[in-house]
């Protein structure tokens, strides 16, 4: 989640598309709308455009577009997320759920997206915890968003380094540990389903 100018992940996030409604006729801009037959873009057209573009069109005075919430941030999904965020496959539904959501939340008039983001993040933290000790890392990482995956794999690197240390030398302090972790993971996975 770093937002510096050269951050590749931020570039990828801002490349995600958002549904926008154009508020004015824009001559020669018809190419933005794949379904438009004309050269000009008509006021009222609904087009999905990348976030970097929507942000600069929106921040014009007067704004050229109004930005709508992508579906993962709308009521239906928010209800699921607030009920049990751990059941959602973010990899499928919103790879950049939090980062994109942070940009998007200012277009949410009701101001509920922000609290959903926070609540979701808090709930899903335990998925990171269990992914970090999981030995089936592929399965545990699967439902995580891009940044969650990063966090989880950094955590399992730490875990691995610690196990290596405990394993090293003449005094091996790990065998029971591994079993314990394995059991813990099984339990965590059971809780998750």
């Amino acid at each position, binding site marked *: 989640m770093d937002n*510096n*100018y050269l951050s590749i992940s931020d570039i990828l996030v801002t490349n995600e598309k958002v549904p926008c409604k154009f508020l004015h006729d824009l001559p020669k801009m018809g190419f933005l709308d794949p379904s438009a037959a004309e050269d000009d873009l008509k006021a009222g057209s609904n087009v999905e455009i990348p976030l970097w573009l929507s942000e600069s069109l929106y921040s014009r005075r007067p704004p050229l577009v109004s930005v709508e919430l992508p579906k993962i941030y709308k009521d239906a999904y928010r209800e699921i997320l607030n009920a049990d965020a751990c059941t959602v496959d973010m990899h499928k539904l919103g790879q950049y759920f939090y980062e994109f959501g942070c940009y998007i939340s200012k277009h949410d008039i009701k101001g509920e997206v922000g609290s959903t983001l926070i609540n979701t993040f808090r709930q899903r933290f335990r998925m990171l915890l269990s992914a970090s000790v999981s030995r089936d890392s592929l399965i545990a990482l699967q439902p995580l968003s891009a940044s969650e995956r990063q966090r989880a794999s950094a955590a399992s690197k730490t875990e691995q380094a610690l196990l290596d240390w405990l394993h090293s030398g003449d005094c091996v302090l790990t065998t029971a540990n591994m079993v314990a972790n394995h059991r813990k993971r099984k339990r965590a996975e059971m809780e998750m389903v």
Partner: protein
Amino acid sequence: MDFNDQIESSGDEEEITAEAVLKTLYNAWQNERLSPEILPHCNEMVECMLGQIQHMERNINKLPKTDLRASIHKMELSRIKYIICNYLRARLCKIEKHCIPIINEERQRIESGTNYLTPSEYKYAQEYLLNMEGHFKSVVLDKVPGNMQTFEMNKMAIYPNLQSHVFLKANETVNGVVLDLPGEQDEEIDLEEGSQHILLYKPVADLVKSGKVQLI
């Protein structure tokens, strides 16, 4: 334990023992490794320790190679060299990563005599920035349309994240540290001597620099 205080006290003819210098270096190393931003240098301590090491190495050479003492001293010196190298390397990493803001802030600090970098680190930072600019120019900027060719330093700057969380142990009691939390009321906490916490770096940055807390 202000670094500057110690610099002065080390000026008073070896008031400080090698053991104390080593302890300071250990703390400085640990803090430097664990803090998001670059900390005030403790070059005097490093120089002092390098002097000790040289002195010790000369003495070791006088001992027979198989002497037990020689191998003990060598082991200790390798340990200390590791600390020093790792400390300096941690600083260089930050200088490279946060080059632009570090140079900007350092310019002001030099004016007020509170510089964080040693003269050679400052020189390194400036050369690093020049190299970076040169590289960007020759690889990309010289080949794009004229109106896009400027090297926009402020956009390229990567700032240390002072809003990151760190673990610390209080070396002495500090009352009323204000954690300013977004959208919530500011919370005040007390750091009792010996207690350990995880909290935001920014409100405790000065405590780290003054040695009142130790990052762990």
